[in-house]
């Protein structure tokens, strides 16, 4: 009993997820024809993993619950996932659990070495999840995602090496512990580690692999990859920026502003929904990076933003799940035959992503702008505001067709993932203050 009590909360979550993975892999033969039982085992593993985290600090709770939410939506979509080979559903479920494990380790790691291991676990799981989608497009997307993930991982471990030289340990950076002789090596090391984490956030210039993965992967799996990666990356970057504000803050602000501009123009130029969502995620990642460079208030705003953003984007991808891995042009949304539930879910997600009040996306963007205004002043905030306003132009383009679909009577299978993600978005919209208070607590404010 004492042994169980002495296990740190994140480790307890990881052990339960690994146990669930092993169970699924051991029963692969039996579960390949029983998708409902498979999803049930996966969901129970994820819910079980959330329990130990409740005993941890606020950052652990936010990280684990965010990752578990992403995993739950992905797991609920496993039975209907568009796979190249439908007998691979158990592998997909196991990879979702492994990816969740990696994301939790990355976000809650006690040392940077563990964080690197979590990052790689998440990257490899994500690449294979994308590759298992139906058709050639997911496979090509997976290759590009994998190559860039491997390069960014190599940069991260090179940075870890430099940090070991400068400080003698793999501990998270802290101000004032570096020998002045090694300060420049420490700075380069921290920046390379930040580069490795930033790839998971999909900010400029590390965006081509994630862009393709979000565009071409099976929607449910791509949604999980995006959500789990972003939660873990924001928490990891927040921890890095807290201990190494000097090199990290200006870099984060710079790449944040460039990402907002790049993502906004990219999304405006798209003619199909998924590519537009992929580019818009770069603009949103830019907002998060900008906030991460704005001190403790900004880091709290970034945590608040990522929780809301992740649940909203999960809702959008869950609503599009089951329609294949091909593009969804704006002009063909009405002909997709989405059920009213899915059309309503996608409508709610797009309204929230556009930041229309009183959706939670509005409060998330407001928190970022407030932090940016306080820390950086007029011009950076103006760029963020313009990025936010331009979002209305591209997010709301498919809205008339979606509203028409909500009134149509198209029958479809139940969509538990849409209901779950939709309920989470509505709850956050009703109580944004509570979520923001939790985010502040997580940052220690």
């Amino acid at each position, binding site marked *: 009993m004492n042994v169980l009590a002495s296990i740190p909360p994140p480790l307890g979550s990881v052990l339960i997820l690994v146990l669930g993975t092993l169970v699924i892999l051991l029963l692969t033969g039996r579960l390949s024809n029983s998708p409902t039982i498979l999803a049930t085992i996966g969901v129970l593993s994820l819910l079980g993993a959330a329990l130990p985290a409740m005993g941890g600090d606020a950052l652990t709770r936010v990280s684990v619950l965010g990752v578990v939410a992403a995993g739950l939506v992905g797991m609920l979509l496993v039975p209907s996932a568009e796979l190249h080979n439908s007998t691979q559903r158990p592998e997909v479920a196991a990879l979702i659990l492994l990816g969740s494990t990696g994301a939790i380790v990355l976000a809650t790691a006690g040392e940077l070495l563990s964080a690197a291991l979590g990052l790689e676990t998440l990257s490899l799981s994500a690449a294979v999840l994308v590759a298992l989608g139906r058709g050639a497009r997911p496979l090509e997307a997976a290759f590009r995602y994998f190559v860039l993930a491997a*390069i960014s991982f190599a940069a991260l*471990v090179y940075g870890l090496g430099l940090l070991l030289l400068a400080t003698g340990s793999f501990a998270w950076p802290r101000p004032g512990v570096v020998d002045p002789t090694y300060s420049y090596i420490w700075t380069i090391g921290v920046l390379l580690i930040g580069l490795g984490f930033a790839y998971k956030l999909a900010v400029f210039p590390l965006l081509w692999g994630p862009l393709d993965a979000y565009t071409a992967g099976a929607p449910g799996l791509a949604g999980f990859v995006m959500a789990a990666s972003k939660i873990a990356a924001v928490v990891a970057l927040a921890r890095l920026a807290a201990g190494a504000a000097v090199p990290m803050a200006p870099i984060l602000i710079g790449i944040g502003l460039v990402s907002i501009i790049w993502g906004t123009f990219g999304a405006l130029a798209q003619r199909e929904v998924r590519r537009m969502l992929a580019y818009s995620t770069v603009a949103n990642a830019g907002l998060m990076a900008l906030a991460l460079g704005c001190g403790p208030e900004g880091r709290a705003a970034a945590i608040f933003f990522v929780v809301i953003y992740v649940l909203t984007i999960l809702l959008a991808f869950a609503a599009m799940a089951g329609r294949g891995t091909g593009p969804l042009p704006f002009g063909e949304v009405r002909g997709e035959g989405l059920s009213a539930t899915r059309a309503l879910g996608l409508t709610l997600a797009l309204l929230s992503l556009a930041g229309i009040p009183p959706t939670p996306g509005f409060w998330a963007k407001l928190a970022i702008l407030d932090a940016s205004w306080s820390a950086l002043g007029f011009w950076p905030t103006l760029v963020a505001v313009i990025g936010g306003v331009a979002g209305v132009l591209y997010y709301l383009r498919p809205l008339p067709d979606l509203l028409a679909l909500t009134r149509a009577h198209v029958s479809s299978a139940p969509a538990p993932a849409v209901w779950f993600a939709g309920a989470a978005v509505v709850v956050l919209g009703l109580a944004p203050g509570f979520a923001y208070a939790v985010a502040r607590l997580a940052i220690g404010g």
Partner: protein
Amino acid sequence: MALAPIGLQHFLVLGTILFCIGMYGALSRSNAVGVLLSIELMLNAVNVIMVAFAKFIDTPQELAGQVFAIFIMTVAAAEAAVGLAIVISVYRLRHSIQVDDIDLLKN
């Protein structure tokens, strides 16, 4: 003329050069297997630096560099397995492993 003894700086320079060659190869090779080999070169460059740190630097964690090198070798093996699996799947679908032929998503 006596040569200067090999020190940490030499290994740092060697590792950095290898890392840069690997990154150049990963970003410029047209053959997908060549890209994977370049990534391995980047990771092995880190290994060179880590083992050198373990030999030349006095730290409270004496074995950190060597343990880290083994850690990277393990991760690199997993990475190579996944990478080759993806490349083989791409070859089965497209009958080519030239990166330029992987172009369905270019727009």
